[in-house]
């Protein structure tokens, strides 16, 4: 069956800037927001936008991600035709190779794309946190009769030099693309979300593959080549929450953003639910001496201590007299009595002993405790 649009999620990155959090898993599988994994946002966006064929391009430590995505049921992507497909590199008659760049990863899956005979291909990143109705982007693309459309976000001009910047004419068509310009001419930053007419994209991918000097990257090679060749590129303006959680700091910040009372991501909005693979946990229990303020607490937690401005994932146990603030605690971790934790990210399945002290509120840095760590009672780790 032919599908009008198929989406490809680039989820192969190793995420080295997330340090020990991505030692044994791909970045999109990292936990976020007291319940979710980063890729839930992109998958839920696809599902809510009625996109029925989604390929997830993986190659680095895909096990956790694969087993998390499973058959795609939590996102309604367990379809008879299409649904979600994991796309790792493979061997063919000429041998095989790992994905060399974002464009090469898509190039290696041309056959998969052709199978579904799509008119458009939507290229997404698996490690961005945002809510977006892609069907509106698609309508925009059709209306403008574009050949490629790039979603852009207005950033403060002072920060524009950290992004790929799109310079557009009045009608939104892109005439120039500058990667991290020192003197930005506009504040429209590329969100790394591309919609292409498949026939055009395929042609450029085939050409790019031949180019020995290419990095095989959308931002560095394919988009500039398209611009040079006169392809009709449009900028689709997006407004709303968007965050690339590629670093420890941005991951922590994105979690803290959720605690703002007027946060734009609004996880409680029933019109654009973020789906997630469910935990099998009873309701959380809050003990007699517990105190919880301005925090998100997941299912199955048992809280006997104090929690302030923090995000606590399912199955966490916080003993009495423990004080947690400005901190993210991931799944099934145990924090023992009288331990104080500030401005930290504590990984999955850790146990922190009694009377420990982790992190410092006034510190610039986020303290990280990686998965499965056991911390002796009395330890000071700042």
């Amino acid at each position, binding site marked *: 069956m032919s599908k009008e649009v198929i989406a490809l999620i680039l989820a192969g990155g190793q995420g080295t800037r997330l340090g020990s959090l991505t030692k044994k898993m791909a970045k999109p599988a990292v936990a976020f*927001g*007291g*319940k979710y994994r980063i890729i839930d946002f992109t998958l839920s966006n696809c599902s809510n936008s009625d996109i029925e064929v989604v390929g997830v391009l993986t190659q680095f430590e895909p096990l956790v991600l694969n087993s998390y995505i499973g058959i795609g*049921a*939590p996102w309604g992507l367990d379809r008879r035709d299409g649904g979600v497909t994991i796309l790792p590199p493979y061997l063919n008659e000429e041998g095989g190779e790992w994905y060399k760049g974002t464009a090469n990863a898509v190039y290696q899956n041309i056959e998969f794309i052709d199978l579904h005979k799509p008119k458009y291909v939507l290229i997404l990143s698996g490690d961005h946190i945002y809510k977006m109705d892609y069907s509106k982007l698609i309508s925009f693309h059709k209306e403008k009769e574009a050949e490629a459309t790039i979603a852009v976000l207005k950033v403060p001009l002072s920060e524009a030099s950290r992004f790929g910047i799109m310079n557009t004419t009045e009608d939104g068509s892109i005439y120039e693309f500058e990667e991290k310009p020192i003197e930005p001419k506009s504040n429209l930053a590329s969100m790394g979300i591309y919609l292409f007419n498949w026939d055009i994209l395929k042609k450029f991918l085939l050409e790019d593959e031949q180019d020995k000097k290419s990095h095989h990257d959308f931002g560095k090679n394919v988009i500039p080549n398209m611009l040079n060749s006169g392809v009709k590129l449009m900028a689709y303006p997006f407004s709303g929450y968007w965050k690339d959680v590629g670093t420890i700091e941005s991951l922590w910040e994105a979690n803290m953003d959720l605690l703002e*009372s007027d946060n734009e991501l609004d*996880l*409680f909005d029933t019109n654009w*639910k*973020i*789906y*997630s693979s*469910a935990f*099998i946990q*009873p*309701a*959380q*229990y*809050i*003990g*007699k*001496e*517990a*105190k*919880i*303020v*301005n*925090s*998100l*607490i*997941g*299912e199955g937690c048992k809280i006997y201590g104090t*929690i302030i401005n923090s*995000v*606590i*994932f399912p199955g966490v146990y916080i003993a009495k007299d423990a004080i947690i603030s400005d901190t993210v605690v991931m799944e099934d971790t145990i924090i023992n009595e009288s331990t104080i934790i500030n401005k930290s990210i504590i990984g999955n399945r850790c146990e922190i002993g009694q009377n420990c002290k982790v992190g410092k509120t006034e510190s610039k840095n986020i303290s990280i405790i990686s998965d499965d760590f056991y911390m002796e009672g009395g330890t000071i780790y700042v």
Partner: protein
Amino acid sequence: MYSILGIINLNEDDSRIEELTYNRPIAAIPFAGRYRIIDFTISNMVNSGINHVFIFTRDKYRSITDHIQTGRAWDLERKNKGVFIFNPLQNYYPYLRSSDMDIISDYLDYIYYSKEKYVVISPSYFISRIDYSKMLKEHIERKADISVAYKKIEKETGEYSDSDCLIIGKDNRVIDIINKKGAKNVFMETIMMERKLFMDIINKRILGTDKDLLKDAVFQLKNNLKIFAYNYDGYLVKIDTINTYYKENLELLKESTMSKLFSDSWPVYTKAKDEPPVKYQVNAEVTNSMIASGCCIDGTVENSVLFRRVGIQPGVKINHCIVMQNSKIGENAVLEHVILDKNVVISSGEVLRGTWDDPIIIEKNQII
């Protein structure tokens, strides 16, 4: 391993809990923050290795169909097995409802075409953690024709007052069944036998079965067949009155009780609802309470159970309350000993005070 067909019989007397069963059977009443009562029986079956489950409804089955859907939440969406809901066929008028034998016999061909050697029949309103595979092991070892599960109650309590009790002989053989206050061996209405025998009983092909109720038909056979009692001694409550419903929910706030019902090795499955984590806002003061996901709390909550997506505004004080899914409590409202059914809205400043033995119940969708 021998295979068991699980049968959940929802022919349950709801007359003493009618405030919560106008639009749902007992099986669909919310319990323990995020479950429906039937979740516990289905999960017991799944945890016991049963992957073929028939649910026989009696009435008000819409909420059961909506809850179970394809059975995926219990991993019971299967090619050839899985979970099936059988509603009474339309040719039965409401006044015939009391006969579970009739309801089941209409679907006997499904039982006939099942391949499991054994069946276990269980109600939903006894919430337990019974392991049917252990029960089967004893059933086989004793060479029983029929096994029935019971729990020995130490202290006399009112909770099982309307339950049948077993009179058990020394060899664990069931001598008789009585309905008597204060009896000790509470019959859990859980019955195990070979599938073929079960079909014969439903078909009334066995000498002496002329009863309309399955349990009556079974015990009528006590002299002809070997009926053994299986002793279960874990968590057990029977939810068929408002009083037990209210108290047993709040009883779960005790660590010792909660850990008897929930453990990692015996998970309770339920339909996922895609709710976000609980949001505690700046005025939240929550103690000794069970809170389900999707709640948003900005007031004071003590000794209470909140189901999914409950909203508590600033200044609210609730104590000893059960608040079901999607209810919203407006600013400065004060609630004590209250049960709010689903989708209730309590206006700002409202004060409702029930008592421990007589909680106030607000029906579904009410605005107070």
